[in-house]
């Protein structure tokens, strides 16, 4: 690759040809402000429509200002990122963007973490000339089970569109109309609920404004906690403990498991439990199902469906229901850990504390927005009472903690309650890409071979590469494993299966970049992929420090089977821990 030399703000730098001014400046430590540009390095996720025009810079010898995110450098280029002309242009652009933006910052759910608000502060905007000529858009707010869309706040950065179409290949969102009326949404401006949206929440994770936010369930949780007639229990997903600290000023990758437990106890939950327990339970069911399918396959059964696909991720489940309904018998029938927890809590545990189902409220803390939708699916209700009553995101939990005047930084470390709070390291790694399949391998290997695993860390399954392939030796039987994070990557593996080219026995799929640690309900990463990596490392650290690291060795899981479920895949387990999938694709019909 040819190198070119250029000067940015009087500093010299040599970069590869084809580099943008924005990236070259970044290498020099100069952060050029932008609203639409976004780059998650190492994850192959980039948005550069060159639309917002905030990142303009002055290039010597060029008449007009250049958008730095989409202008390549050339040899001898001289760039000024903060000349008076640039600063004035940037302000004018910002004033145009703000001219038709609602001014309700005080009550906006994005207030405090809004990139538009931060930009207005940074540029010192004090008035918005010409706003009386701007046409305020009047789109109705779309309330889906997981995501709220307030299009009046859309600034057309089109990050959400890129995530939905290019990274996830879901195709629910597209820009429509033009001028003041333009916004991003599903076809025919229908609600998300009627589109092919999977509620993965990646649009929310990258939205710089309050246009896309989660459906807030914190009021429901507070109401439940204030009701003396209810027992309220909580489960926390593995990825939450690796990210919650960020909302309290801690460095990315700080583990706050113990502090989170003590905050939840102080918020008034009667029992603080762990979704990781249910992750162990998932491994028992899913791992047994996998072994069952493999054994049948090796025994010559041609009917058996392989590869088996994981089914923990609700956005992934929606994705194949919408886009690959003909393959709906391939994924494991095991419910997700959130739903397994809810199901066991409202039967086994409710019984233990002599509480009626309707008097037990199950709250889940999730890194995810699709979990909100999953919790209200009809299959997971008994007599209209959901197994999981309310699912709130990591961000919502942070709000609850702050509202209760608690400072996570100074809370003591406390332990989860028993019995549904005990978990193995295998349950913890469910929170990152590759973790579910590694957990499954730890258990399936020992159950299949009857031998003890010497080395528990399967490095070949870890990492952030989009699609990973590995073969694990099950004592003479090679098991081929595939891993994909991001639905676009999952799609590639599904196409292979469809064409009969897939070599895999098992495939793990998570919808979000990096897995659940990069979920749509996590603290906002503001396009910094090092945050996702730090969270993932934290998850593996938590696993390494656990005394028990295999799901089938969790004593409370063993007890649950002894006292209640019998054995994995038993009739009772099937009834409580497994599910079915539905064809949700669009059908063309003649009239």
């Amino acid at each position, binding site marked *: 690759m040819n190198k070119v030399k250029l000067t940015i703000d009087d500093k010299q730098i040599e970069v590869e040809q084809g580099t943008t001014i924005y990236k070259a400046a970044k290498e020099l430590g100069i952060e050029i402000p932008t609203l639409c540009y976004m780059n998650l390095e190492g994850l192959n996720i980039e948005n550069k429509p060159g639309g917002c025009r905030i990142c303009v810079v002055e290039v010597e010898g060029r008449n007009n200002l250049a958008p730095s995110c989409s202008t390549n450098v050339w040899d001898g280029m001289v760039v000024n990122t903060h000349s008076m002309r640039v600063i004035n242009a940037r302000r004018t652009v910002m004033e145009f963007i703000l001219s038709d933006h609602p001014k309700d910052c005080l009550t906006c759910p994005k207030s405090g973490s809004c990139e538009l608000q931060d930009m207005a502060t940074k540029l010192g905007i004090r008035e918005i000339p010409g706003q009386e000529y701007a046409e305020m858009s009047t789109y109705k707010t779309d309330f889906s089970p997981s995501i709220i869309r307030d299009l009046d706040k859309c600034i057309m950065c089109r990050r959400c569109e890129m995530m939905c*179409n290019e990274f996830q290949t879901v195709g629910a969102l*597209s820009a*429509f109309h033009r001028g003041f009326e333009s916004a991003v949404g599903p*076809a025919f401006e229908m609600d998300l609920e009627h589109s092919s949206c999977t509620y993965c929440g990646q649009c929310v994770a990258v939205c710089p404004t309050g246009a896309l936010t989660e459906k807030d369930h914190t009021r429901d949780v507070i109401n439940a906690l204030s009701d003396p007639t209810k027992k309220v229990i909580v489960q926390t997903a593995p990825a939450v403990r690796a990210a919650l600290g960020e909302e309290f000023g801690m460095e990315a990758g700080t583990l706050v498991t113990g502090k989170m437990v003590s905050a939840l106890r102080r918020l008034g939950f009667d029992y603080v439990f762990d979704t990781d327990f249910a992750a162990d339970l998932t491994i028992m069911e899913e791992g047994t199902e996998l072994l069952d399918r493999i054994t049948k396959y090796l025994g010559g059964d041609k009917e058996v469906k392989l590869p088996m696909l994981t089914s923990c991720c609700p956005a992934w489940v929606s994705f194949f229901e919408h886009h690959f309904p003909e393959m709906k018998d391939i994924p494991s029938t095991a419910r997700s850990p959130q739903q397994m927890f809810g199901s066991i809590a409202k039967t086994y545990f409710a019984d233990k504390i002599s509480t009626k189902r309707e008097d037990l409220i199950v709250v889940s803390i999730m890194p995810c927005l699709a979990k909100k939708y999953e919790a209200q699916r009809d299959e997971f209700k008994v007599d209209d009472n959901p197994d999981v009553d309310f699912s709130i995101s990591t961000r919502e939990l942070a709000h609850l903690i702050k509202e209760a005047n608690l400072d996570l930084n100074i809370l003591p470390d406390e332990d989860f309650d028993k019995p549904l709070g005990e978990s193995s390291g295998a349950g913890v790694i469910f929170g990152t890409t590759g973790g579910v399949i590694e957990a499954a391998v730890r258990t399936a290997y020992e159950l299949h071979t009857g031998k003890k695993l010497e080395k528990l860390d399967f490095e070949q399954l870890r990492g952030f590469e989009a699609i990973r392939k590995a073969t694990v030796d099950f004592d003479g039987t090679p098991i081929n494993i595939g891993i994909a994070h991001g639905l676009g990557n999952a799609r590639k593996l599904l196409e292979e299966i469809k064409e009969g080219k897939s070599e895999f026995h098992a495939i793990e799929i998570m919808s979000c970049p990096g897995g659940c640690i990069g979920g749509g309900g996590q603290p906002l990463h503001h396009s910094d992929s090092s945050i996702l990596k730090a969270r993932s490392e934290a998850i593996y650290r938590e696993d390494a420090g656990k005394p028990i690291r295999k799901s089938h060795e969790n004593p409370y899981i063993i007890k649950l089977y002894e006292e209640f479920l019998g054995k994995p895949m038993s009739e009772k387990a099937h009834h409580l821990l497994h599910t079915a999938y*539905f064809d*949700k694709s*669009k059908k*063309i019909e*003649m*009239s």
Partner: protein
Amino acid sequence: MSSIKVKIKEKDLNTIKEICKSFDNKPGELINVLHKTQEKFGYLPAEVQEIVAKELNMSVAKVYGVVTFYSFFTMTPKGKFPISICTGTACYVRGADNVLQEFKRQLEIEVGETTDDGKFSLSCLRCVGACGLAPVVLVGDKTYGRVSPEGVKEILEEYKEI
């Protein structure tokens, strides 16, 4: 939980499929496909966009995005006599807006709409190259020059009996 259904006549479905096929079902040919399809159907209703999206293997959201971006494409059927008012610079300064308002008042529709009886639809366009006749109104292929708000009624009368 049932799947979403799109209803369409078999004949229309085949017409759209043929148009898409004539462009090798390439997503890059979307605008050409939409042009041809609108030529056939007069407009591009949701069902038609669904089929085009499926045939070109792209999301219907994207198709809708393109349909709403270009003012040439329309999702409402045009009237039997489509009325276009030129709001280009010359026509505008000579009072095109007053003429437009009068059409809206008489027909009781907004720009982009069609009267309930399907007879008239209203749209604006920019410059037909007859600035000397400003303000200009087109009804179908027929051009009317130096139209005043008072003349609107007379123009509409011409088509009342047809």
